[in-house]
């Protein structure tokens, strides 16, 4: 009888630990997911864009890559046109970035994650970005 009680306890401890770990992991996962807002965005369809297919849909996309160059600065509204080399495809895209007060300034070779949208003039507008 005693051997059975000890075995049961062991199983209970293991189960508890496993459950706790699982719950913890799940919690952590849920927390992380809640923190990374770019993760829910679709990858920017660069090939479609380059082929000139209509992209204006109101959808938002994610672009992850490196700032290759600052192509132009509009001195009136401070909008930057930057070229960004995409991390996954190596393609380079021109992206318009409107500076915001709570965002760090852009610089060359900076690794970024961006949320972008394409307007009816095929311009890729960066809605927000964060350092990768």
């Amino acid at each position, binding site marked *: 009888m005693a051997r059975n009680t000890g075995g049961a306890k062991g199983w209970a401890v293991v189960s508890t630990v496993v459950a706790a770990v699982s719950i913890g992991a799940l919690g952590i996962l849920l927390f992380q997911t809640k923190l990374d807002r770019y993760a829910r965005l679709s990858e920017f369809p660069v090939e479609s*864009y*380059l082929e000139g297919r209509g992209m204006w849909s109101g959808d938002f996309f994610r672009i992850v890559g490196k700032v*290759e160059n600052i*192509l132009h600065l509009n001195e009136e509204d401070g909008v930057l*046109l930057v070229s960004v080399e995409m991390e996954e495809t190596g393609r380079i*895209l*021109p992206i318009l970035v409107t500076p915001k007060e709570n965002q760090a300034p852009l610089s060359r070779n900076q690794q970024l994650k961006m949320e972008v949208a394409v307007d009816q003039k095929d*311009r890729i507008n960066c809605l927000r970005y964060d350092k990768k």
Partner: protein
Amino acid sequence: MQRYKLNGPGPISRNLLVSVTATTACLLGMATLRTVSQEATPDRSPAPTSPSPGSQGSDFDASEGVDAFSQELAVLQKALSGNSATVLSPLGMPNDLNAFLNSPPTDIGRVTAYYSQLMATLNNLNPTNPYATTGPTKAQDIGAAEQGLRSLTVFGEDEMISRILLNHIQAVRGEHRSDKGRIGQIDREIAAREVEIRRKEWNLENEASPNLLNGELLGGKGGAAQTLAEILSLKERLRALVQERALLTTVRNPLRRRAQFQLFILELTSQQRYIHALIACGFYRYLSSDTTFDPQQLEEERNSLEAENREQNLDYQASLKEIQSSTSVIPNAVNASPLLGATPSDTGAGGSGPSGATSAASAQGDSLPRFNSITGLETFLTTKIMDSRRKRQSFDGMISGKRYGLAQALLIDLHSTARHQPELHTIPLEARHDVLNYGNKVRQLSEALSSLDYESIKALSAEAGEIDSMIGTVPLKAFAEKYPVQGRIWARQAELLSRSGKFREAEEMMKAALQVAPLDKEVQATLKNVQDDLLEKREALEKLKKIVKDGDYREAFDRADEFLPLVESDGDPDLEKDFDSLMNREKDVQASLEKSKALEHRGEHAAAWLEVTEVHETVEDDSRFVSRRTELSARSADFAKGYYSAKDFEEEGKDVIALAWYLNLLNEVPGSDVLNTRIEDLSRRVGRK
């Protein structure tokens, strides 16, 4: 800048020695030729792209030499024209003077006999006349003089003057005899002469018409002029007949007959028949004691006779004037003859009064004074006769001294001031021929000078110099020696300039050579070569203009050695600019092709492809570029696809997508100017929106 000026010949006075001139010209030519040869050696090195400073304007300038030549020629022509009146025109002498100089020997003999008889008559009437040979002791013999006058009527040269004079004498004497027979004879003669005048006028009209076979006149060169002179001679005789008839039919009023006699004497004076006039004065003085002129009565008689003559001659004058106006071929020299085209009153034939005489003399450039009496008139006539004699003596001296130029001038003067005097008409045949030959020789020389026939100038100068030492042939010979050499030098220079591509200068030099030596065989042969060169140049220039118009930069570059001198010599700034543009275009094409090969060699296929693709639209279809693009397309297919995509999007106005493409292409060809330029432009446009 070197200038190649031909040293023009100096004034004629400095070039009198033929040998010195010729030697100088040769040395000058050799020196100039050497200089031009050195300069004009064709440059085989690549032609410069910009015209040399020396190619602009006319450095090879023969204008000074040509100016000097023209001045020298003008001086010689002026000097020659001063030597003979025939130089100015082949008909420089009056037509009847030419006929006078060409008179046959038999005519001269008859004329001499006529004037001997005339002077004998005068001698009988007035022993103290200028021709008197018997001395002042001889007595006046009216009967012999009248007989002498009758014997003069048989001479044709007298032109009925003596007969009319006899009629006047009889009329003033008041001799009653029947004039019926004579009047009838005059009527018949008038009718015959009228027919003859009409026939000659018809001939004149036809002689002045062109010959359809050879384009000349039917009557030949001098035919019309000769016929016109004959018509005028006939008209003079007709006028005399009419005048005589008028005299015979005039009422027998002694006063009127004396006035008519006086008018006749004045008419003889105006016609320069000084001996006849003196004879008439002698008879008048013998017949009438009243030797004064009554101007009023003379004017009345003159008007009366003039009216009668006008009535008789009106038709002939009108028709003659009509012919003259329609026949412009009649030489001016003939028209200038005092007899031609003159109305009876102009020549004083019908108007024998003082005013008529004065007008007639004015037409001959020598006005008569107003005479108040027979004595005054006789003094005038004697002075005129003495003048004529003095001129004749001078003429004879000039002929014996072989100064034919001066003799010719004096002969013309004598002909205009003493037309019917023995001093003129008794000039010997040999002297006439000498003057004529001299005039012809000088005229030929002048013609040779005008046509620049240097060989003829030399030959004729020698001949004319032998005839008359005063003519001064040394400058002519020097001129004829110098300028053929000068012409050959300039022709040779034209050839050298043409070969060295200086076509404009060659043309100028060629014109100069032709101007000074148009008939020189050597000049002509050399200039033919130059002309051939210039013809080739013109064809090449046409080809060049077509190439420039078509924008064929490849052929322009290939034939640059040939075309560059043409462009420089043509002097057209637009052509020069367009040609330079073509040359630069071809150079750019060649540079792109070479750069593309170098990039390919380094393995930069995309850059190599881009180098032969991104070219100016005027050369993008160049077969060399097309071929090169085809060669590289296999190894740079993706780049090419991206490049064309970018271009297409840019054309569609999709600047952002085009910019994306260019950014990706630049990644493959870093540092490409073409791509960077496009990126910069598009970035500016996109960033501004």
